[in-house]
C-alpha cells in the first residue's frame, strides 16, 4: 500500500490553485518552489482521489446492481450498465414484501431490527446515565475502585460471556418469556427480551465510561447550587444532568444504535433465528449461506439492511464523530 504514499507529503497546506497563487504572491518564494508545492499537492490529491474511488466502488456496485433485473445481474457486470441498460424495483419488492415462503421476507426482519435496536439502545443509555451520574457526583472512597473495575470490564471479549449467559437465560429468562406468552398470547414465546438484555449488558461498560467523562465535566457549582436549593439527587439527575448531557447522550446513542443494528453474533446466539425475533443482519447472513449466487436478492437485501444505519450516520454524523473522538482520546 506504500505505493500510494508520495515521497513528499504536503503537510503544510494543500490549497486550491487560485488560493495557492494568491498565497505565493503574498509570501516570498521562487517560482520553482511554487511549482514544487503545486506538484506535491497534486500527487497527494491524486492519491486521495484513488483511495476515495477504491473505497466507494464496492458499495456503488452493490447499489447499481440492486436495481438491475435478475437476468442482467447474472450475465453482465454492473459496470456495463450503459451497454446493457435495465432498471427495476422488483428486487426490492421481492425481498421486502413478497409473502411467498421461498422469498427472503425481509420486512419482518426489518421490524425486528428496529425493535431490537430501539430498546437495546435506550436501556443501555438510561442505566448508563444513572450509573455515570452516581460515579461522578456521589462521593465514596470505594466508588472509584468500582468505576475502574467497570472500565476494566471492557477488556473481556464478548465471546467469554456467551456460553454462561446463554445458560443463565435458558434457566431464568425462558420461564419468564413463557409466562409472558401465556398472559399475552400475541407475544411470541421467542421474544426480544434476551436480545435487549444482552445488548445492554455488553454495552454498559463503555457507555458508563463515556457518559461519565461528560457528566463529570458539568461544573460543580451548578450541582452544588441545586443541592443548596434542596434538590434531591433524583431531581438533579432529571432536571440538570440529563439536559446538560444531551449532546453526550445523543452521540453515544448513535454509537450504540449502529453497533446494535449491525450486530450478528449476539443475534445468532440469543435470538433463536425465527422471523419473530431475528434481526435483518442474521437473515442476510443466512441468505448468503443458502442463496449465495442469487445476486438480485442479495444486493437488494444488503442495501435494505444498510440503509437505516447509513441514514442515521449521514444525518447525525457530527455527533457520531464527537462521540468517537471523546471515546478514543479520553480513554
Amino acid at each position: 500500500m506504500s505505493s500510494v504514499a508520495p515521497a513528499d507529503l504536503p503537510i503544510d497546506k494543500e490549497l486550491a490553485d487560485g488560493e495557492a497563487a494568491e498565497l505565493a504572491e503574498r509570501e516570498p518564494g521562487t517560482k520553482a518552489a511554487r511549482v514544487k508545492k503545486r506538484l506535491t499537492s497534486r500527487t497527494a490529491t491524486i492519491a486521495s482521489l484513488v483511495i476515495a474511488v477504491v473505497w466507494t466502488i464496492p458499495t456503488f456496485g452493490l447499489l447499481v446492481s440492486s436495481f438491475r433485473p435478475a437476468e442482467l445481474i447474472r450475465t453482465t457486470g454492473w459496470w456495463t450498465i450503459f451497454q446493457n441498460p435495465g432498471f427495476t424495483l422488483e428486487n426490492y419488492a421481492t425481498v421486502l414484501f413478497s409473502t411467498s415462503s421461498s422469498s427472503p421476507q425481509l420486512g419482518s426482519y426489518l421490524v425486528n431490527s428496529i425493535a431490537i435496536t430501539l430498546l437495546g439502545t435506550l436501556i443501555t443509555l438510561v442505566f448508563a446515565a444513572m450509573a455515570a451520574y452516581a460515579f461522578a457526583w456521589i462521593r465514596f472512597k470505594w466508588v472509584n475502585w468500582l468505576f475502574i473495575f467497570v472500565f476494566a470490564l471492557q477488556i473481556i471479549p464478548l465471546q467469554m460471556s456467551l456460553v454462561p449467559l446463554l445458560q443463565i437465560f435458558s434457566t431464568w429468562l425462558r420461564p419468564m418469556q413463557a409466562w409472558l406468552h401465556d398472559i399475552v398470547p400475541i407475544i411470541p414465546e421467542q421474544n426480544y427480551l434476551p436480545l435487549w438484555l444482552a445488548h445492554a449488558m455488553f454495552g454498559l461498560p463503555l457507555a458508563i465510561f463515556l457518559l461519565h467523562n461528560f457528566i463529570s465535566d458539568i461544573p460543580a457549582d451548578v450541582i452544588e447550587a441545586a443541592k443548596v436549593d434542596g434538590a434531591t439527587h433524583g431531581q438533579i439527575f432529571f432536571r440538570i444532568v440529563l439536559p446538560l448531557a444531551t449532546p453526550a447522550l445523543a452521540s453515544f446513542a448513535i454509537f450504540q444504535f449502529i453497533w446494535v443494528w449491525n450486530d450478528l453474533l449476539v443475534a445468532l446466539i440469543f435470538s433463536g433465528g425465527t422471523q419473530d425475533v431475528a434481526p435483518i443482519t442474521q437473515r442476510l447472513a443466512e441468505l448468503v449461506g443458502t442463496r449465495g449466487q442469487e445476486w438480485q436478492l442479495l444486493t437488494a437485501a444488503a442495501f435494505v439492511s444498510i440503509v437505516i444505519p447509513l441514514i442515521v450516520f449521514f444525518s447525525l454524523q457530527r455527533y457520531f464523530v464527537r462521540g468517537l473522538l471523546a471515546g478514543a482520546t479520553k480513554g
Partner: protein
Amino acid sequence: MTTPDLLGKILQVVMGLVVLAAVVGLLIFFIDKAPKKGRDYWQLALFLLPAMLFVAIGLVYPAIRTSFLAFQNNAGEWSLDNFIWMFTQPAAIRTLINTVLWVALAPVISTVIGLAYAVFIDKSRGEKYYKVILFMPIAISFVGAGVIWGFVYDYNGVGDQIGLLNAIVVAFGGEPVQWLQTDPINTILLIVIMIWIQTGFAMVLLSAAIKGVPTEQIEAAELDGTNAWQRFMNVTVPGIRGSLVVVFTTISIATLKVFDIVRTMTAGNFNTSVVANEMYTQAFRASEIGRGSALALILFVFVLPIVIYNVNVLRKQREIR
C-alpha cells in the same frame, strides 16, 4: 408478516418501554425517599443498581465461569484436553495462525492508509466530503460489507465475470480465480474487508489529531529547511503519537474479535477460520463447550497485553502533561 405479528411486535416494544420507565421511576422514587441515615449511601446504591446487576450477570460471572469451563472436558472433569486440542490439531493451529495474520495486517494497513489519507486531504477544499467517503463503511455492518465484497470477489465458471476483481483479471488476460476458496489468498481478501471498514475510523481520529499539532512547530521546522517528509516524520508523527496508539490498539482489538466477516463469507471453510469464528462454531454448532471456552480464553489472553500496553501509554502521557 401478518398484521397480528406486527401488532405483537409493537406491543412488545411498548411493554418494554413501559417496564423500563416503571423501573427507572421506581428507582428514582426510592432514591428520593431514601432514609435520612446513610442517605448518600442508599442513593448511590440505587443509582448503580441496574447497571451493576447487568454487568455482574452479563460479564463478570460469565467470564469467570468461562475460564473454568475451558479447563473441563465434556463430562465436566478437569483436564487440559481443550488446550491440547487447540495446539495440536492442524485445523485449530491454522485458526490461531490466521488470527495472528489478521492482527498483523489489518491494524497496520488501516492505520497507514488512514493516516496518509488524513494528511493528503488536510485543509484541502471539500475535506468534509472526502472524509465522509472513507468513513461511511463504519456505518455498514460486517454482514453487509461481506455481501458488498462477496460481489466484488464473485467467480463465474462460464460466461462474463460479474465480480469486479475477476473482471479485472480477465481484462488483463488472466484466468478467473475462485478467490474465496483459494488458500491463502482468501484470508488476505477477507482482511481487505476489515481494512475497508476500519480505515475510516483511523482517518477520522488521526485527522483530528493532526489538526491539534501546533502550526508553529511545523512552521519552525519549515524555516529550518526541512522537507515535507522530514516535517511529517519529525513533527507531525510525534505530535499525534497518542492518537496513533489509540487507533492502532482499537483496531487490533476489533480485529481479534472479528467474527461476522468470516462467518458470512466462508463460515471458516477453506482454511479461513479465526479464533472468534471457531469459538462460535465449537461452542454453539458442535456443542464443544470446553473447546469454545478455551478459545474465548485465548482471545482474552490475546487482547490483554494490547489493553495493558494501551493503558500504560496513556498513563505516561497524562504524567507528561
